[in-house]
């Protein structure tokens, strides 16, 4: 336990890695705004922040995966122009990505051999395997070198990735959300390994948004918020409350939007989920024991770090994902096994998190895309003809109400990301849906359009529709919701009224720290 205060290096040496004023723009977003931080040899350094705080972008810039716009990176005090991952590797920086990059059909030792820069033409795999085993013994990273990667658990694959980097002589190890794929007992093992590596003089940087992990495994912590450094703490100084304030604290009391009371909660709910659970496939997460009611004239916000079941929640309500357990009720009617088409005909609108893959058919025209969810409505003579005039009128009507304008002619693929999002909003709100599932509705929109989209949800609420608002923007959730729930690990872990809580309390549940302390204020 080498508890040191924030500014002082844990060893006598200077920093191994210095980042000075690193700035990175993406179109429309300032992902990293002049970020500076140091990493010393022998420390485990955590980068903590909400989704979209800029953590991943920052480490990808350091690894040369993205080209930074401004700022400098110094290794051992010398400026390093890291423009590609290859250059970063030559400077002995190694990175474990969120999605592991091993080749499943090959063995561990073959994967490692592929990564070595000086691999001879005739490989000596047994020698490499021997080195792997020696390293594995040293750092408690035991993986059978001759096992095929596809037969390994995710935790073992992660160990293999680490071994790969170590054998490649990395001195700076970067791990992008390493605990996301691990079971709780594996997390503890990982932090032991990282501490061991640091004790041997390596510098370890890991990304997380979970407080307990930071407090458990990091020597120093840099907190990012909205692309900036919000604070730096050593482990000794850090407490959960301090970290939460740095991550989330904002004053929402000044926010206001015209949201008249609808006094709805007494009515029968439009949507009700009773004990709904789903099965996880591949990269998806299983929902467990979801109980949720949405009444007419009510907006229910779903707060959470994305990847905690938001996509699955939307899909299971829409009917694209089957309920493994529990039941689903729409206007008091059991729709547990209803097809997507039936749900839509019953007045469910769905704005997914990623319109390009989940809502839009790029090769069809904009007008065809608008018609395609409600072909029954626009079919003439039993489907022999389509009433394109009606489609156009409906679309123009909805566009005028929302204050959006984009071209209805031409293929959908010619629209920009923001216009695609507008098109989906127009389509999904144009038939006065009674239930609206809106995921990340303002993503990709400019401030004015974002306001228009939010106002549209409030209009729907005012005419008695039920809205499920899934968002990772707490401000948006506090602004619009009548009630809010927090989704974490596929479960609803908290229920609030926005006026009775604050961002820090919600953030505490979002980051999974409630389980540690048993608090739920």
């Amino acid at each position, binding site marked *: 336990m080498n508890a040191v205060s924030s500014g002082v290096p844990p060893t006598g040496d200077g920093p191994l890695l210095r980042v000075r004023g690193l700035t990175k723009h993406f179109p429309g977003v300032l992902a990293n705004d002049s970020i500076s931080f140091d990493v010393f040899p022998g420390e485990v350094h955590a980068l903590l922040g909400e989704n979209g705080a800029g953590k991943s972008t920052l480490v990808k810039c350091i690894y040369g995966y993205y080209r930074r716009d401004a700022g400098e990176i110094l290794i051992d005090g010398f400026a390093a122009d890291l423009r590609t991952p290859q250059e970063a590797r030559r400077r002995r920086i190694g990175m474990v990505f969120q999605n592991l990059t091993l080749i499943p059909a090959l063995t561990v030792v073959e994967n490692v051999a592929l990564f070595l820069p000086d691999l001879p033409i005739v490989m000596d795999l047994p020698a490499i395997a021997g080195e792997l085993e020696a390293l594995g013994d040293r750092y408690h990273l035991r993986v059978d070198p001759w096992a095929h990667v596809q037969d390994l658990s995710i935790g073992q694959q992660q160990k293999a990735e680490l071994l790969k980097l170590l054998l490649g002589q990395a001195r700076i190890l970067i791990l992008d959300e390493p605990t996301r794929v691990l079971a709780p007992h594996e997390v503890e093992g990982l932090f032991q390994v990282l501490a061991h590596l640091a004790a041997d003089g390596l510098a370890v940087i890991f990304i997380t948004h979970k407080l307990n992990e930071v407090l458990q495994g990091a020597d120093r912590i840099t907190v990012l918020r909205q692309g900036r450094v919000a604070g730096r703490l050593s482990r000794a100084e850090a407490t959960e409350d301090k970290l939460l304030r740095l991550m989330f604290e904002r004053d929402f009391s000044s926010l206001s939007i015209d949201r008249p009371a609808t006094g709805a909660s007494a009515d029968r709910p439009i949507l009700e989920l009773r004990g709904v659970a789903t099965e996880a496939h591949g990269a998806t997460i299983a929902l467990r024991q979801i109980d949720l009611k949405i009444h007419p004239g009510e907006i229910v916000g779903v707060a959470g770090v994305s990847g905690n079941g938001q996509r699955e929640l939307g899909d299971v309500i829409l009917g694209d994902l089957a309920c493994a357990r529990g039941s689903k009720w729409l206007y008091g009617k059991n729709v547990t096994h209803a097809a997507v*088409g039936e749900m839509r005909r019953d007045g469910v609108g769905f704005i997914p998190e990623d319109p390009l893959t*989940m809502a839009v*058919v790029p090769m*069809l025209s904009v007008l065809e895309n608008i018609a*395609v969810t409600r072909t029954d409505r626009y*079919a003439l003579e039993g489907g022999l003809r389509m009433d394109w005039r009606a489609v156009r009128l409906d679309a123009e009507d909805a566009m005028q109400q929302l204050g959006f304008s984009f071209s209805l002619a031409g293929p959908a693929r010619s629209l920009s990301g923001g216009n695609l999002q507008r098109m989906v909003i127009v389509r999904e709100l144009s038939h006065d849906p009674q239930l609206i599932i809106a995921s990340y509705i303002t993503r990709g929109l400019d401030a004015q359009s974002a306001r228009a989209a939010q106002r549209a949800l409030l209009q729907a609420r005012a005419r008695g529709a039920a809205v499920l608002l899934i968002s990772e923007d707490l401000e948006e959730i506090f602004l619009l919701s009548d009630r809010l729930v927090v989704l974490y690990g596929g479960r609803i872990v908290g229920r609030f009224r926005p006026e009775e809580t604050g961002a820090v309390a919600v953030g505490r549940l979002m980051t999974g720290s409630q389980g540690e302390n048993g608090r739920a204020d």
Partner: protein
Amino acid sequence: MAEPTDRRAPAGPRRILNGGLRYAAMAALAFVLFGVILRLAGKDPLQAYRDIFTSTLGSAYGISEVFVTMTPLLLTALAVALPSRLGLINVGGEGQLYMGALLATWAALRFSHLPSWLLLPMMIVLGMIGGGLWAVPAGYLRAKGIVNETITTLLLNVVAPSIVAFFVFGFWHSPMDTNKTPNFVPAARLPTLFGTRVDLSLVIGVGLLALFWFVMTRTRWGLEMRSIGGNPWASRRNGIPVQRYIVGVMVVAGGLAGLAGMAQVSGYYGVLLANFSRGLGYMGFLVSWLAGGSPLGILVTSFVVAVILTGGNLLQLTRDVPYSVINILLAMTLFVVLARPRFQRRRKTA
């Protein structure tokens, strides 16, 4: 209201002209390459091409023979083009065609006493059912996400001719031959047109192509199918019953290939021969991909392919060139045409 449909040609006639020129240039390239091969084999390519041309397009009889060859290609190409709109690759035209011929033949032999107006529709329906059923496993396994339809249809192609052979050799062969059934009664023969060997199935094929165009561009179902082909994940969330469409379209496609099989035995041969098809299903696959799945393209391409095939027959007779050489020409055409998307993409970025 044509505006939502013509997504392929936003720039109008000039683009069509460009496309036409490009096609012509590619065809020319294929013919030059083939000429080089003929030259190497010691034949005179110009004379060979002249022979192909005069024997096919140079006389009314030649043209009618081209139509005869073209007829089954229309249907087997359609059996590929329709599923391709959903992103499905049906390589099983050959097997589906055999199974259609099998069921149609059963009706022709079993109900030979029935009048033509009853027997022919019955054979058509049974032919389509035979081909359609043969596509069910492929459609179902694909819809459930178990096996890719390309694999299943291809494997079933090997099975179908064996089943036909089993029935022909085992039960149905005529007293004189072992490898074919007795000749069909006149009532089981598709009527021919204008005293040529061209039969009614040409009209049916062209009619179905027109229907295909209409359904895809004008109707609700065409919109839904194009939506599935463009983005199946979005289509599911947009409420389109994707699995049902996959099975349904595979069955209809199989039925079209089965209809081609029925037309072959009822119109062209008037008898069911074991191994009668010599790859009509695969040729349909070639035609559909050359045509990019468009109905008009299928009409033109199958005509051109039919000219090459009929001309090849003649080359074999008069020029002492093996028939298989024609396959080289077809393969070259495919090769050159399949290189086309590259061209277009490069132009776009330039």
